[in-house]
């Protein structure tokens, strides 16, 4: 598209983009600012200039150990992602490369489970977890997160695999590649970018998942989402501490997202833009 864009228009567009970006980012920014205030400052009202005290961070770390929920978050998000890939790669594979008449229906059915409100199944799942002893265990929560995100993982991988032209696989077969050779030399190198961005997205989704992680844990398996929530009760709201806890909780995933943004954008728009 060769279109002359004047410098002025360019400047206006750039400023507009920055404003939109700032509006979107503002809640996170304000959380960080608030975390750097003292507790009295924080309840005083809207104020963009903190006193840059780290007392909230110190209190958060001494009151409750940050490391334990952090490790839980890592184990749950990475664990559930690996587990989901283990199931989803073969599933998406067979649906992309040897579809049947029912493949579309199965894909739609899987997606439809994401449309159901989670609260609707809270009681039965809670009871199952209680009776099987999975409540407040890393294993239980990993399984839960795997199942929640599985439809999205299958869908993403499916759209990726669909992009791999069948003729290339046939060419490999003609060239004498065994099934194993086909997978190792041709399919895997072509599928790895797709699997990688699916993995990244799923780790983020699992990291941020709050509904089930808060409800199915108390202390042992509680990840960072539950860690944040624990600061809102029962002693009342402590804005600065809550903000400090939130900042600590989102920092790892923000950093990871920053470094992998190129992969992520590519992953999410893959197939849509050619």
């Amino acid at each position, binding site marked *: 598209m060769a279109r002359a864009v004047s410098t002025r228009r360019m400047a206006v567009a750039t400023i507009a983009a920055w404003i939109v970006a700032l509006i979107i980012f503002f809640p996170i920014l304000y959380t960080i600012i608030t975390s750097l205030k003292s507790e009295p400052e924080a309840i005083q009202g809207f104020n963009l200039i903190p006193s840059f005290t780290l007392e909230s961070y110190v209190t958060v770390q001494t009151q409750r150990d940050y490391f334990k929920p952090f490790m839980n978050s890592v184990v749950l998000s990475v664990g559930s992602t690996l587990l989901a890939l283990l199931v989803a790669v073969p599933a998406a594979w067979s649906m992309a490369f040897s579809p049947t008449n029912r493949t579309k229906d199965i894909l739609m059915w899987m997606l439809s489970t994401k449309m159901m409100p989670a609260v609707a199944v809270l009681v039965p799942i809670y009871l199952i977890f209680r009776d099987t002893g999975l409540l407040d265990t890393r294993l239980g929560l990993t399984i839960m997160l795997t199942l929640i995100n599985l439809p999205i993982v299958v869908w993403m991988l499916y759209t990726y695999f669909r992009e791999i*032209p069948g*003729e*290339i696989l*046939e*060419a*490999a*077969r*003609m*060239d*004498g*590649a*065994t099934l194993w*050779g086909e997978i190792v*030399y*041709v399919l895997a*190198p*072509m599928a790895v970018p797709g699997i990688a961005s699916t993995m990244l997205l799923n780790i983020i989704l699992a990291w941020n998942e709050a509904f089930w992680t808060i409800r199915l844990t108390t202390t042992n398996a509680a990840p960072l989402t539950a860690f944040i929530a624990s600061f809102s009760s029962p002693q009342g709201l402590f804005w600065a501490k809550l903000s400090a806890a939130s900042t600590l909780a989102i920092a790892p995933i923000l950093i990871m997202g920053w470094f992998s943004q190129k992969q992520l954008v590519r992953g999410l728009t893959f197939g849509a833009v050619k």
Partner: protein
Amino acid sequence: MGKIILRNVNKSFGATQVIPGIDLTIEDGEFVVFVGPSGCGKSTLLRLIAGLEDTTSGTIEIDGRDVTKAAPAKRGLAMVFQSYALYPHMTVKNNIAFPLKMAKVSPDVIEKKVTEAARVLNLTNYLERRPGQLSGGQRQRVAIGRAIVREPSAFLFDEPLSNLDAALRGTMRLEISELHQQLKTTMIYVTHDQVEAMTMADKIVVLNAGNIEQVGSPLDLYNKPDNLFVAGFIGSPRMNFVKGKAAEPYRAPTVGIRPEHLRLSTESGTWRGVVGVAEHLGSDTFLHVNVEDVGMVTVRAGGDFAVTHGDTVYLTPDENRIHRFDDKGLAIR
């Protein structure tokens, strides 16, 4: 060696029969072209020979060996695909080397063969590039290179030139013909383009709705088409078909006359007509003439034949070059 024999080969997809039963012998070293309109089953037939599709019934023999149930790689064939089907993550060198690597050939032999193939195909300067950095013609040459290094008993081409522009298609056509002269290996080439078929083939197989309509040399098909389908498909522009009253003097229900076998005059002739569109190509002029009782007739005239829309002209069919067909559309000889 690459003699391929199909015996009553039959292919159905579910309830749809694509190929109802074909018998065909392809001699060693022959350049055979499968030609036909889209959906006629020519690609399916090629894929059956390649082993990429399973036959529903019938047998396929290569050099006396029954390969009907053999895996594609075990048939000793190499295939060039329409989309080139290069491995996008490998360099040109690794693409060409891939079949050798799969066959566990030693690295120094691979190096030698790849270098030789690259030289033949003018790819020496591109060996370290990836397919994405090449033009369409270069990609096609890489695909051919990948096929050559295997030294297959036959090459299979599935519409290899249809993604190229017209000029490049002409060049690649010559290159493939040249390659066949050099290697003298059996080649089976699928196309819907009858010009490619006529110019490249030793033997053309005309397919229609999964059936073989006729097998023969390009000139056989041109001079002695067995039926209306072959007569209409081979030759460009298409053969004119005349039916009813106008065909009666020639003692046949349908008569076919090629545009180049009609004599054109502005004074007198068998048929009188009015010129519609005149296509001036420089070397030739193709006139579309509306003849009373006959219909639209295409005529080939010399490049400098001065005539315009609305002029009256006279056409006389060359009696010796007339093709006569019976009620069923079969040639009367």
